[in-house]
């Protein structure tokens, strides 16, 4: 299968920010709100990426992923949990029999400042432990030096190792800074074999923003028109409220449309977001807000 994307193309900063802002102006009410919240919940990658993560913490997260709220709220499990390679095995064990995937960050996450050999080794650890999805980081240093070939080849090498396992490529847009860079990196990542492109590690600020996500969605559309391959999108980091999450959903709805409104094609990486969505769903159903204490911590 050849993947031939057109040239990177350019982005106009002012217009892209203006357009992104229009998605925050949609008024999502009543039925559409509840439906949107449930959909967005099913797209969550519930994430814990800390040095102090233990199997115990991961167990809490996995259970929350499978049973997020009382049944009457009609909220299904999230799409995946996202953990470090070390914790893939316990996560897989906790999630056995469920639909929740285990995603592992790899390739010397979050900096990517190591040799390709180490990155592949890191990925292999996660794969051997049974990860369903790999979230890799690109080599931003190489990208910013213009070594696009190196960036491309590393992604291609990781994808080769992954085989059928889903590969998400983290661009770390907060370090790429310009929208032109974000677009170029998106194109590289898709050309090199990524199944998903993802904004951020969550370790750098700013993480996901609406305009950055819009630039990436535009790149995905261009890649789809050129190659016929649908690439998924995952904004991650900085999305804390249900309101923000719905703005991202509106954006996908009005740019790529129906085929991307699924957990297979769109994910949100977050940790605190889940409970805010649940709180809003409960409000839609019960007609009043509840204390956060009624919702278990992830």
């Amino acid at each position, binding site marked *: 299968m050849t993947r031939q994307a057109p040239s990177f193309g350019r982005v106009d900063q002012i217009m892209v920010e*203006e357009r992104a802002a229009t998605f925050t102006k949609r008024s999502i*009410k009543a039925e559409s709100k509840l439906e949107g919240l*449930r959909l967005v*919940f*099913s797209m969550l990658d519930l994430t814990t990426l800390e040095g102090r993560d233990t199997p115990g913490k991961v167990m809490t997260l996995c259970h929350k992923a499978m049973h997020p709220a009382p049944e009457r709220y009609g909220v*299904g*499990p999230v799409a995946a949990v996202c953990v470090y390679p070390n914790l893939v095995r316990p996560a897989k064990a906790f999630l056995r029999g469920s639909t929740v995937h285990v995603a592992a960050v790899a390739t010397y996450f979050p900096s990517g400042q190591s040799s390709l050999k180490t990155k592949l080794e890191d990925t292999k650890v996660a794969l051997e432990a049974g990860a369903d999805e790999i979230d890799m980081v690109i080599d931003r240093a190489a990208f910013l030096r213009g070594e696009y070939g190196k960036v491309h080849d590393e992604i291609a090498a990781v994808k080769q190792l992954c085989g059928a396992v889903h590969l998400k490529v983290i661009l770390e847009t907060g370090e790429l800074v310009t929208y032109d860079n974000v677009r170029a990196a998106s194109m590289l990542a898709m050309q090199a074999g990524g199944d998903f492109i993802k904004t951020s590690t969550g370790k750098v600020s700013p993480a996901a923003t609406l305009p950055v996500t819009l630039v990436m969605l*535009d790149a995905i559309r261009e890649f789809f028109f050129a190659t016929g391959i649908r690439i998924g999108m995952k904004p991650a980091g900085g999305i804390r409220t249900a309101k923000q999450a719905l703005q991202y959903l509106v954006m996908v709805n009005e740019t790529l*449309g129906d*085929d991307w409104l699924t957990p297979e094609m769109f994910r949100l990486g977050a940790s605190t977001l889940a409970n805010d969505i649940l709180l809003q769903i409960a409000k839609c159903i019960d007609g009043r807000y509840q204390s956060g204490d009624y919702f278990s911590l992830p």
Partner: protein
Amino acid sequence: MSKSPNKKTKSFTTGVATLAAPAHAAPVPVRDRTLRFNGRWNYSPAPEAHTDIKVRPRYDLFIDGKFVRPSSGKYFPSINPATEKQLAEIAQGNAADVDKAVKAARRAYEKTWGQMPGRERGKYLYRIARLLQEKIRDLAVLESLDGGKTIRESRNVDLPLVAAHFFYHAGWADKLDYAFPGRRPRPLGVAGQIIPWNFPLLMAAWKLAPALACGNTCVLKPAETTSITAMHLAEIFAEAGLPDGVVNIVSGFGDAGAALVNHPDIDKLAFTGSTEVGKLIARSVAGTRKKLTLELGGKAANIICEDAPIDQAIEGIIQGIYFNQGHVCCAGSRLFVQESVVEPVIRRLRNRLSVLRVGDPLDKNTDIGAINSREQLDRIEEMVASGKKEGAELFQPSCKLPARGYYYAPSFFTGVTDSHRIAQEEIFGPVLSVMTFRTPEEALERANNTPYGLSAGIWTDKGSKVFQLATQLRAGVVWAETYNKFDPASPFGGYKESGFGREGGKQGLLAYLKFE
């Protein structure tokens, strides 16, 4: 590895539905590479609450600081174009009413306003601006009810600009002596002002704010389909304590407008509207002492070069032609696309049109509201029919229009040439004519090949090309990498049959001043 070999087709259940869309399937064949917008997730209605905002059953004339009955005793209905229902009755002013208004304006000019120091005039204008700002939501709802424009635009664009125009010109009132060094600016006297229906309050502000700042008094005639908000503006003037007669508003039909144009005691006429009427006014005014400014029609070229950021240029096209249902004199109605990028531009444009939401102007999610009147809808339909007849290909998204009300789906024509009527005449609706070009020189030549010259747009990533084209486009406003951006500090006006004179900025003051 614990991966199941058939992962590609594995489905999993979510809270909403069972989804099985393998992300990594074989590439979609070229003919199926389309995006679908069939409403997998739809937005529920989100109407702006408006029961607290009262439309009065009847609106009188505003003359000499008072609301008065028209001397004819006649009223005509004002229709809500979104529902075709009557909103209110509007006083039908005639020549006698215009005469009363001009006399009141003359008295006010001689006794109060014309004598008042600039800084005092400025205080009134600031007060008006603040009152406008406080009432933005109410006025926006009225504007949408009366004219059919979306609440999204009336609240976020029209009304903030209305207030901004008063703030901006309030600032000029006491600085006129410094604006034109070495010259002594003086007001002209009584200004007659006739405004269109596409931006009722904004056009009133464009006319009134500079005239008042410069020390003139005014007689304003709003368009017959959109008079309601002008009368609410009159209430704000009264609330601000503006001296009687400084602003007079006479609603009515063309005969009232003609009476204003021909009134002997008018010093200045300002008109925004069609080129046809503009020419009539120019003829009537010829040979009199009346100063004249005209802001007329347009058929603007929006030029997309091959090196443009395409996805953002699409947004510029949308803003250019579908803003305010295309009822914009500076609308980018002729799209010139460089041949090498025609296919991606058209494809994206189709997708983009598919997500524009047409319907109830008071729904906060509506992108395209109602066409202002039955008459205008007929005009649009007639022009589209001529485009089809002349062989151009029409694209319209499959959107459901409300059963009642005047609506038109956003549309564009491909296969258009310069000699098509739809490429030459102003449609004043959400209809775009797409043409192609090969070199920037060609685009420039064809962009200028029109009797109009109000505005133009340029899309390219090359700064040098922007400057090269902008200096040669014969249009009053040239936008680069954006479209339909307005600011009170930026002068607006046309070349050729788009009129003369500028509104806004320091240049706009010249229309209301003379020099001693």
